[in-house]
């Protein structure tokens, strides 16, 4: 039990003392995960909506595949991205391995299926509800795509937050492709893993508390934005 007390003390000391190392790690975590989620949203929303609205051969298989890819193991994604970005790999000349860019690439691969699959469900449900109405207005699936994404925007925020949850919490992929390099690619989760391996469990748990608080703050901010927007435009 003493570990829990020590963890809260460590978390408090780090935050209250504006530990510059901690600030750097938190900054990089947010930078990597938010950019990855941003990119995944840009890809995932249109892809998910398109799968929901268009009928094409193999669509059912694609829907199942998208749902299954939500469970992509981070360590496998890390390994694949490593093999692609390694100097001996096809994209080795770019020199991206062990950089934040590599971490963003890995997280985009992890998060895009989550956002696409959840978007697919949201848009499909809306389409079932509005199809007759839209067709009578002369709007086919192509026109409906943007309309329904806009209509479902408040629900879709949850899909994006699910993606952010995955990105900010995973350690397997960023550890492999980032290398957990001090001041370069060390993020919250890899720092926690490192402190655990040093046996400093209180500090590790303290970092965990900071990470969870951060996640709470991001979700609270998203909730506030959603509420305010809903009141103004809802």
């Amino acid at each position: 039990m003493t570990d829990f007390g020590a963890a809260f003390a460590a978390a408090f000391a780090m935050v209250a003392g504006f530990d510059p190392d901690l600030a750097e790690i938190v900054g990089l975590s947010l930078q990597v995960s938010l950019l990855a989620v941003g990119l995944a949203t840009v890809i995932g929303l249109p892809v998910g909506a398109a799968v929901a609205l268009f009928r094409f051969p193999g669509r059912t298989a694609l829907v199942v595949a998208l749902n299954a890819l939500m469970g992509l193991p981070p360590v496998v994604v890390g390994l694949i991205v490593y093999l692609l970005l390694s100097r001996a790999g096809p994209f080795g000349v770019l020199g991206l391995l062990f950089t934040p860019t590599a971490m963003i690439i890995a997280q985009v691969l992890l998060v895009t299926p989550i956002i696409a699959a959840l978007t697919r469900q949201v848009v499909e449900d809306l389409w079932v509800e509005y199809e007759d109405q839209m067709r009578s207005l002369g709007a086919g699936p192509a026109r409906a795509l943007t309309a329904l994404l806009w209509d479902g925007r408040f629900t879709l925020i949850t899909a994006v937050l699910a993606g952010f949850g995955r990105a900010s919490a995973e350690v397997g992929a960023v550890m492999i492709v980032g290398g957990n390099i001090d001041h370069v690619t060390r993020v919250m989760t890899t720092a926690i893993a490192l402190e655990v391996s040093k046996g400093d469990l209180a500090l590790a748990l303290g970092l965990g508390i900071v990470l969870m608080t951060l996640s709470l703050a991001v979700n609270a901010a998203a909730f506030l934005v959603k509420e305010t927007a809903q009141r103004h435009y809802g």
Partner: protein
Amino acid sequence: MHRSLSRFPAVALMIVVLALVVTQARAGERFITVTSTTSTQNSGLYGHLLPIFTGVTGIEVRVVAVGTGQAIRLARQGDADVLFVHHKASEEKFVAEGFGVARFDVMYNDFVIVGPKADPAKVRGMTDAAKALVKIAAAKAAFASRGDNSGTNKKELELWKTAGVDARGVSGSWYRETGSGMGATLNTASAMNAYALTDRATWIKFANKGDLAVMVEGDDRLYNQYGIILVSPAKHPHVKAKDGQAFIDWILSEDGQEAIAAYHISGEQAFFPNAARAGY
């Protein structure tokens, strides 16, 4: 209702550009990549050593700390400029196969066998590591192995071989392979009161010792030599040979060797420099 969505392409482009700008911001810096072992990182040596080197030369050193086996693998693929590990036979093979330019001794410390204070195998105070392992096997006392092809793991397997015990053959019973780094393995050993082989520096620094203590030490076979190698620019043309060599030269120089000797954990010297060049 479409007005906001029509901005989607613009927002998308902005995010992509932002991602590129942010991640490329550091690309202009002068740095080398060193793959090294978890033991040197967990011991805190780099936190002491690297700022001194960077202060002198302006070259930033990015350390990727993994097991020796994986570190060598990364270097073979050309994903590092310098390899700094601790398994001489593997290092010499790396150079012989043309992946490394040359290998130099840097420093040493030693391995110890730690175990629960209750000492069910009665090995406390022994100085023959192989005989101690025989007793641990005979008592079927829990033993936590790295099981990850690291330098420490290779050393441990060599000791089992000397002891004439096929520990891996009974893996899963009293012999437990964690497949993880030194610290993670010590956490496991601490949680299940198992014996384990660890390098001394990681052990001194390790904060979750629980009921474990040093049981066996002082065997010549527990000697732990670290070596440094420049990855061959002939094999991998992108290797930063000049800056990588500058790091190696500094580590082997009198200044570098003194910096290593000066690193203490809890008042104990963690590594003993023994580069041939510096005349130690």
